C-alpha cells in the first residue's frame, strides 16, 4: 500500500507534465484541448533544438573536465595513498554537504569584478583594470559545474578502481607488462564501468542544471535548456510549450541513462559490479510496480 502511494506521488507529476504538453495557449489562457502544436513548434523553431544542443555542449565539456580531474585523483586514492586515504576521500566528499547554492555563489565571489581573483591579479600588478570576462560567461558556468560535479564523477571511478584485485596488476607485471602497459591493458579497461557511471552523472546533472547558468552565465544562461523552460513557465506564461520542452528533455535523459546502464552491464566483468549508478536510476522507474 505505501509503495503504491509513493509510486502514485512520483508518477502523477510526470503524467500532469505530459498532459500539459498537449494543451495550448490561447489568448493568454491555457485551453484544455489536445494538440501537437507545441511539439511542432519545438522541432520547427531553431531556438529549441539549438538550446538543447548548446546545453549538451556545455555538459560535454563539464564531463570531460570532471573526468580529467577525477580519474587521476581516484587513481591516487585507490592505489597510491595509504595512510591518509580516508582523510583525502572525505576531503573530496565534504564539499557535497555544502549547499549547492553556496558553492555557486562562492564562484561569484571569486570571479566577480570586485572578486578575489581580480583582487589577487591586481595586487600582483598583473592587471590595471578588473577582468570582466571572468564572470557571466559560459566558461564561468563550465568552471562552476566542473567543480560541483567532479566528486560525483570521482566516487564511482574510485569504487571500481578499489575493487580491482591487486593480483591482476601483479599478474600483468609478471607477464612482462611495464607499469604503463599494466594501466593501459588492465586497470583502465576494468575501470571503464566507473568512468561511464561518473560521466553519466556529470553529463545528465549539468545538462539540466539551472542555478549555475542563472547565477554565473550572464547572457549565455539564456542558452541553457533549464533556463529556457524556466522563462517559458515564468515570463512567457506558456506552460504547455514549457512542458513539451521538459518532456523532450526527460525522454533524452532517460535514453542516455538506459544507454549508460546497458554499456555498464555489458562491461561488468565477473563480480566487480560497482559503478552501477546510472543503471540504478533507470532501474527505479521500472522496478517499483
Amino acid at each position, binding site marked *: 500500500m505505501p509503495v503504491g502511494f509513493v509510486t502514485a506521488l512520483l508518477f502523477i507529476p510526470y503524467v500532469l507534465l505530459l498532459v500539459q504538453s498537449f494543451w495550448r495557449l490561447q489568448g493568454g489562457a491555457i485551453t484544455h484541448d489536445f494538440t501537437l502544436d507545441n511539439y511542432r513548434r519545438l522541432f520547427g523553431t531553431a531556438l529549441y533544438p539549438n538550446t538543447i544542443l548548446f546545453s549538451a555542449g556545455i555538459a560535454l565539456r563539464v564531463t570531460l573536465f570532471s573526468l580529467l580531474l577525477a580519474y587521476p585523483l581516484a587513481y591516487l586514492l585507490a592505489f597510491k595513498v595509504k595512510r591518509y586515504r580516508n582523510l583525502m576521500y572525505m576531503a573530496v566528499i565534504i564539499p557535497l554537504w555544502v549547499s549547492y547554492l553556496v558553492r555557486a555563489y562562492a564562484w561569484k565571489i571569486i570571479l566577480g569584478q570586485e572578486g578575489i581573483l581580480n583582487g589577487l591579479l591586481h595586487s600582483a600588478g598583473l592587471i590595471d583594470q578588473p577582468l570582466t570576462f571572468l564572470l557571466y560567461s559560459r566558461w564561468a558556468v563550465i568552471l562552476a559545474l566542473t567543480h560541483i560535479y567532479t566528486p560525483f564523477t570521482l566516487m564511482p571511478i574510485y569504487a571500481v578502481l578499489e575493487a580491482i584485485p591487486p*593480483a591482476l596488476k601483479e*599478474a*600483468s*607485471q609478471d607477464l612482462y607488462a*611495464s607499469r604503463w602497459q599494466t594501466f593501459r591493458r588492465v586497470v583502465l579497461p576494468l575501470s571503464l564501468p566507473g568512468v561511464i557511471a561518473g560521466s553519466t552523472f556529470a553529463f545528465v546533472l549539468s545538462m539540466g542544471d539551472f542555478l549555475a547558468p542563472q547565477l554565473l552565465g550572464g547572457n549565455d544562461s539564456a542558452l541553457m535548456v533549464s533556463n529556457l523552460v524556466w522563462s517559458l513557465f515564468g515570463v512567457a506564461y506558456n506552460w504547455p510549450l514549457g512542458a513539451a520542452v521538459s518532456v523532450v528533455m526527460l525522454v533524452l535523459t532517460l535514453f542516455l541513462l538506459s544507454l549508460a546502464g546497458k554499456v555498464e552491464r555489458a562491461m561488468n*566483468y565477473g563480480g566487480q559490479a560497482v559503478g552501477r549508478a546510472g543503471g540504478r536510476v533507470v532501474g527505479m522507474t521500472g522496478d517499483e510496480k
Partner: protein
Amino acid sequence: MIAGFEQPTTGEVLMVGSPITGLPPFKRDINTVFQHYALFPHMSVRENVGYGLRMKGVPRAEREERVSQALAMVKLDQLGARSPRQLSGGQQQRVALARALINRPRLLLLDEPLGALDLKLRKEMQLELKHLQTRLGITFVYVTHDQEEALTMSDRIVLMRQGRIEQVGTPRDLYDRPASRYVADFIGETNILTGTVIQEGPRPVVLKAGEDLVRGWSDAALPVGSTAWLSVRPEAIQISAEGHPATGDSVLTGKIVDAVYSGSLLRVHISLAGGQLIVAHAPAGTAPGIGDRVRLSWGAERGRCGSD
C-alpha cells in the same frame, strides 16, 4: 620475493647463480600461477594466454600459434574464445597454467594453485602438474599449506615456519627423518611423546616417558638426563591384546577410547595411563572393542627422537 613483488630486507635472491634481487617482476625470467588464478576478466582465454607474448612484442602469427599449442597442452583448445568467468575452477586453473608456461620461463612459481579446487579435481591436477613438469623440465616452485600435496608432488621440499627454514629434503627424508618436532608434527600424522633420555646412543636412544620406556633413533647427540621428544607414525604401531607378547622394542599399554572407520583402515585412539591420546592404524577388517586394554609396540627404527 621470487616473483619480484616484494623486496627482501636483507640478503640476496639468486637464480641459477646470478642475483635478481632488485629486478622488477617484468624483467624476471619467472612466471607465476596465482592463488586465485588472477585471470584478466575483460579478455578472452586466448587473449589471457597470449598476454605475456604480446607484452614481449612477439609477432602476431607466432603468438597465435604458440597460444594454440599452450591451450592444447592444457587440453583447452576448444575454449579459447570464452571469457574466463565462463569456465569452471579447474579450467581457469589450466588457463592460468598455460598463460604462465607459454612464456617458457626458467622457473614457474605456483602459489597454492589448487587451493580453490575440490579434492578429486585437486588430485587429478596434482598428477597432471607433475607430468607436465617432468615433460617440460622447468623448475617448479610450488607453495602449499597442504602437507600431503607437498609429499605427493615434490622432488625436494623446503618446510618453512614463520619465514625460517625448518628442514630441506626429499619427501621421504621429511616423513621418515623429521629434523624437528615441528616437522614431525606437520608432515603426515604422528604421535609425539616427551620424556627424559636414559640411554644415549649408539642407537637406539631410550626415553623414559611417564612410566614407560620407548625407543627411537636420532641424528643428533642426546645427552642422558636431557628432555627429548619421540615421534612415531600411526602406521608403525602394532596393537595387540594385553597379555600377548609384544613384538616391538617399545611397549606402551593403554585403553581403546575410539575407533574411526576411514575406508581403507581403522584409526584407533588409545588413551595412555598419563591421559595422552595415541593414534594407531589397524586393518579395516578388525573390530577392536572400545574400552579394551591393549599393548602398543613398535620397532626402534620406526621412532624418531630429537631435543628441540
